[in-house]
């Protein structure tokens, strides 16, 4: 008996810290968020249980839909730019390129830097006095296109998206490059012997080999967009109003600026729900493909 107990001692002792910290600060908070989302609560007074009222209010809130659409636009724009750019650059690096490692190091650099710092940097670039975008336009003779990128309603949202799109291209370059390097060389060689051109070989031989990685990149890009906060927060604070806010910024403003913890939690749960649905659907799709 005593022997058995001491046999358990080490496993329990070794697992306890991870288990406790994770449970108290990740798992329980997630359940609490779910519970708070069904209450009317400002964080100070007593919580009042109101069922799904917050969600009903949310779907009839114009601001929510504006922010939701902003987030979806971000999802689409990041997908359309990050994945193709990542793939193209990776493929070019993969084709017996000298200095491949140096290029890769440079492309990946922005990925490791704090989004908030990148946001600050782009704020400076957009600045109407000193910003390089206006400078460059002037130099190439398109001075008439100069504008205050972060106050013009037409450019605002895209100006806020740009740093995020730019920052993470290197991540996809690196993942795709790893994927390409895992393809057996005979496969590509035999395609070349068959007389398939570079471009043909790329679409018919290489692309099918890395489908799984492509799915993962898409998933990373989408969930990353759904969680985004920092760039929008530092550049515009999500404003004016919520015009340049994403769901994450909207949630923060609702909960911590307007002290509406109940509604803030409802927004949180909708972010989680959307990411979970997308993740599950994607996993199903990848599984189907690999089974096939």
């Amino acid at each position: 008996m005593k022997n058995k107990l001491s046999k358990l001692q080490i496993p329990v002792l070794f697992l306890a810290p991870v288990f406790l910290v994770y449970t108290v600060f990740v798992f329980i908070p997630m359940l609490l968020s779910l519970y708070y989302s069904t209450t009317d609560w400002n964080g100070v007074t007593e919580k009042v249980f109101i069922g799904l009222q917050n969600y009903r209010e949310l779907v009839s809130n114009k601001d929510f839909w504006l922010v939701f659409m902003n987030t979806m636009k971000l999802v689409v724009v990041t997908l359309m730019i990050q994945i193709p750019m990542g793939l193209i650059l990776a493929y070019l690096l993969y084709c017996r390129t000298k200095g491949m490692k140096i290029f890769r190091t440079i492309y990946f650099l922005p990925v490791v830097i704090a989004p908030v710092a990148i946001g600050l940097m782009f704020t400076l670039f957009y600045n109407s006095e000193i910003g390089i975008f206006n400078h460059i336009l002037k130099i190439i003779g398109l001075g008439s296109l100069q504008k205050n990128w972060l106050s013009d309603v037409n450019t605002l949202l895209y100006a806020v998206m740009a740093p995020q799109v730019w920052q993470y291209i290197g991540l996809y370059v690196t993942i795709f490059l790893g994927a390409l390097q895992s393809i057996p060389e005979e496969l590509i060689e035999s395609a070349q012997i068959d007389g398939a051109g570079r471009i043909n070989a790329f679409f018919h031989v290489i692309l099918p080999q890395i489908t799984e990685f492509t799915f993962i990149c898409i998933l990373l890009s989408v969930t990353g967009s759904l969680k985004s906060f920092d760039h929008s927060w530092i550049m515009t604070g999500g404003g004016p109003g919520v015009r340049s806010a994403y769901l994450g910024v909207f949630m923060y403003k609702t909960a911590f600026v307007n002290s509406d913890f109940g509604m803030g939690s409802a927004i949180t749960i909708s972010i989680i729900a959307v990411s979970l649905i997308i993740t599950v659907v994607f996993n199903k799709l990848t599984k189907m493909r690999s089974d096939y």
Partner: protein
Amino acid sequence: MGKFRNKSSKSKVAAIIKYLFLTAGAVVSLYPFIWVLLSSLKDNNEIYSNSFGLPKIIRWSNYTQAWNGARVGTSFFNSLIVSLSSVILLVVITAMGSYILTRVHKSTFLSVYLSLGIMIPIHAMLIPSVIIFKHLHLQDNLVSLVLVYIATNISFSLYIMKGFMDRIPRELDEAATIDGCGQAGIFFRVIFPIAKPGMATVATLAFLNCWNDLLLGLVLISDPMKRTLSMGISALKGSYVTRYGLLCSGFVISIVPVVIMYLMFQKQVVQGMTAGAVKG
């Protein structure tokens, strides 16, 4: 013959286009940082009139003002202390946890439970953690940041660490048992030293996550003296909107540690950030 020559000159053109494209990509990735670095040594006038050139007079005063006047120094040390403590504690406890989960007691339930965090965005913890730390009397305390940073990094750290420990041959454990080592002894004398590369990967990635976090800091800390660097940068933009040189120097100070770390531990950084993708 003619056909052959034609083909090779065509491939030469292709190669030139390829390198042009790659170089353009490199310039777009790197030049923004160079511009900020140069501007951090200029005053407003020069940033305006000489946007692309080297500074004519080097103004280090931007740095001293950002470091002292704008409290970037304080934020820098706060970030350093919080990130390092989080990473050290995280590595130790996830190494202990992974050891049990891969070698002593393989529990699928626990493994799945502890990996759920990979899918939960930080947003889910914001409001509840404010309340929890209020109850723990850790409001506006850097300890609260250390705790949530550890917690939010546990899932992926366990994932990487377990993968690593799984590949350590089991014969080593057996040999150590014969030599009279207990479970704890095997961990500290055998596994811990061998698992160092796995720990380095976890540590570099977790350090980046902690150093770069803004959201948790904003929610849990309000005292300006306890701000982390991300919050410091955010505040800098608020109070020094038009001091461009100073903003640039604040930016440079905030990225120096991660850039150094990236250049030194590039392999681990890349491995960590793409681990989820590569193993599927």
